[in-house]
């Protein structure tokens, strides 16, 4: 058994006075998809955002406890949040391509981090990222078109490609399919399945079917607590906690 990629220990997250996450401890492994499920407002997105310190950008947000990436405390003073986010990428609920061309959307990250020397290398990075995101064939002839001109599903794959382009180790996805139709959703789910071999993927989802389809591990959050965490098949078939059972059987939430 290898060392977990991310380890969270006794994490609390506050928004001002309000406690949004209460004492969560979880291990996230490489090479698999981990799903966070739970009713709206349960804190799953908040917890996800604390894994790459995106909560830093919200005024009044505070994180206590310990989150280790490869054994390194990401909230330590020596950890640069900018460098951290290059290692822990993120895909958002609504596709948010920049108002630039498709090419520039992908090249944005590598350029900031100086990953490419020269145009040829950048072209290669862009092609590789788009290929991995399964978008290359659809857009290779119109790389200079605006990223915002793509369909919703394509935009979301563009955002995934954009995250891949900076070669992260972990990809966090915050309800990546909630704004997409079922066909685009299926496409993204396939993609997630392919990507899990190269990255540790954490996905927040409202859809329990989606969690069951794409993830190997599932964590159920409720009211800021991590209620249950285990193999996806176990959580969905033989939940240990009553609250989990009530939720996945649609009793509430």
């Amino acid at each position, binding site marked *: 058994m290898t060392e977990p990629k991310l380890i969270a220990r006794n994490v609390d997250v506050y928004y001002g006075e309000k406690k949004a996450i209460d004492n969560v401890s979880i291990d996230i492994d490489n090479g698999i998809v981990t799903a966070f499920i739970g009713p709206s407002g349960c804190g799953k997105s908040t917890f996800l955002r604390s894994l790459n310190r*995106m909560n830093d*950008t919200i005024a009044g947000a505070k994180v206590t406890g310990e989150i280790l990436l490869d054994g390194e405390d990401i909230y330590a003073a020596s950890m640069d949040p*900018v460098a951290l*986010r290059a290692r822990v990428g993120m895909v958002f609920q609504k596709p*948010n391509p920049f*108002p630039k061309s498709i090419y520039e959307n992908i090249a944005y990250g590598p350029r900031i981090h100086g990953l490419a020397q020269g145009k040829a290398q950048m072209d290669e990075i862009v092609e590789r990222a788009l290929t991995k995101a399964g978008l290359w064939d659809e857009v290779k002839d119109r790389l200079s078109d605006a990223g915002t001109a793509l369909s919703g599903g394509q935009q979301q794959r563009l955002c995934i490609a954009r995250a891949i382009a*900076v070669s992260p180790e972990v990809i966090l996805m915050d309800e990546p399919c909630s704004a997409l139709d079922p066909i685009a959703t299926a496409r993204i789910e396939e993609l997630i399945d392919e990507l899990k071999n190269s990255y540790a993927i954490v996905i927040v989802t409202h859809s329990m079917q989606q969690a069951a389809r794409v993830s190997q591990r599932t964590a159920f959050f409720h009211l800021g607590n991590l209620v249950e965490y285990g193999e996806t098949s176990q959580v969905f078939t033989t939940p240990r906690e009553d609250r989990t059972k009530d939720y996945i059987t649609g009793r509430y939430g």
Partner: protein
Amino acid sequence: MILTGILLAVVGLGLVGWFVGRGRARLLYDGRGSMHSMPTYHGWHLALWIVVPALVVWTAWSAIQPGLVEGALMADPVAATLPADAMHRSAILAEAHMLANDPGASVFNAQSQALAAPLRAIVTRFSLIGALLVAIVAFAGGAYGFTRIRARFEARTQVERAVMGVLLLASLIAILTTFGIVASLVFEAGLFFKDVSPIAFLTGTHWSPGNARGADIAENFGAVPLFWGTIYIGAIIAMLVAIPLGLMSAVYLTQYASRSMRKWLKPILEILAGIPTVVYGYFAALTVAPLVRDFAASIGMQNPSTESALAAGLVMGVMIIPFVSSMADDALAAVPRAMSDGSLALGATRSETIKKVLLPAALPGIVAGVMLAISRAIGETMIVVMAAGAAANLSANPFASMTTVTFQIVQLLTGDQEFNSPKTLSAFALGLILFIVTLVLNIIALRVVKRFREAYE
């Protein structure tokens, strides 16, 4: 007097009508759903029927009465003694009107005394006729309105329509005024362009309207130095100050400032926009201009003038900062948070995110803000009057005294002026050009803003 009285009476009658209408409607009420409209609406409906037709008649009568009075007076035997000279005649008539209103008034022409008594009688007669007409219409309207009070009568709908009419009238007044202003500008400018060809005006480089006499007047109305001064001060120097400072303060306020900091800084910045321009003007003339002059002297300029394009432009730039910053602020705030989140999540720093994602996304809004700021700056008058000078120089030297379109308009129209000389009329031509330029800038800016809004909504 009589007409003013009847006006008050009509309003009073309207008030009575309101109560009567409401009271009458209340008698019809017998439980929920028995009436189409609430009694108050019947009150309003009746009051409107009393007041509106009466007001229309009153206005019409006020407009035609002077003509009727004049006609009747001329028919009077006393009028036959009036001199034929039109100017003299109207002077006497004016005095007679004064005497008719106030018998103690001191007058110059003795003849007006003789006219006063018959005039007063005529005015009284016509006023009484008018008052009677108004009263008849008010009562007739009231009677009609009263007969319509029924349970099923849709008074509410009618009143709503009347409210819409009032609102439409209010908006029409503003629009009609604008048309009136444009029409008068175009008319006077047209008179000017009869004397001076538009081409000479728009391309000539010599401006000295004071010397314009005789056949070669067109040579003294070359407005290019004024346009240049306006652009140099308002669109170049002022923008060099306002764009960077306004933009940077907007970026600070939207992206970096804590909420409490923003709460304090934004209103303070907006105070800048509330300072009267005349205050900026003397700040420019008394504080900034001497500093600019001393600076010019220290870098070796011979006899630098106290009035300079630079002093006026700098202060104008400061004045414009709030415009630029508040438009840029709105534009930046309109960029969805997802945009900056996306960039930050890729490991971009805050300033990289602002520079590469936020500013480009907000650019159309910022450009629109800058255009509005320019149109404001080139129309600005007080600062240039006080600090830029009167000399129509065509120069790129910022320390030189320069003049602008607005300054020249002020100069051409203050003091005693004959309103038919090209010198005075040229002010309208300048005003027209300025109006067209600012109008075009505003239209472009509003279009850009609109397209930008659509992109994110």
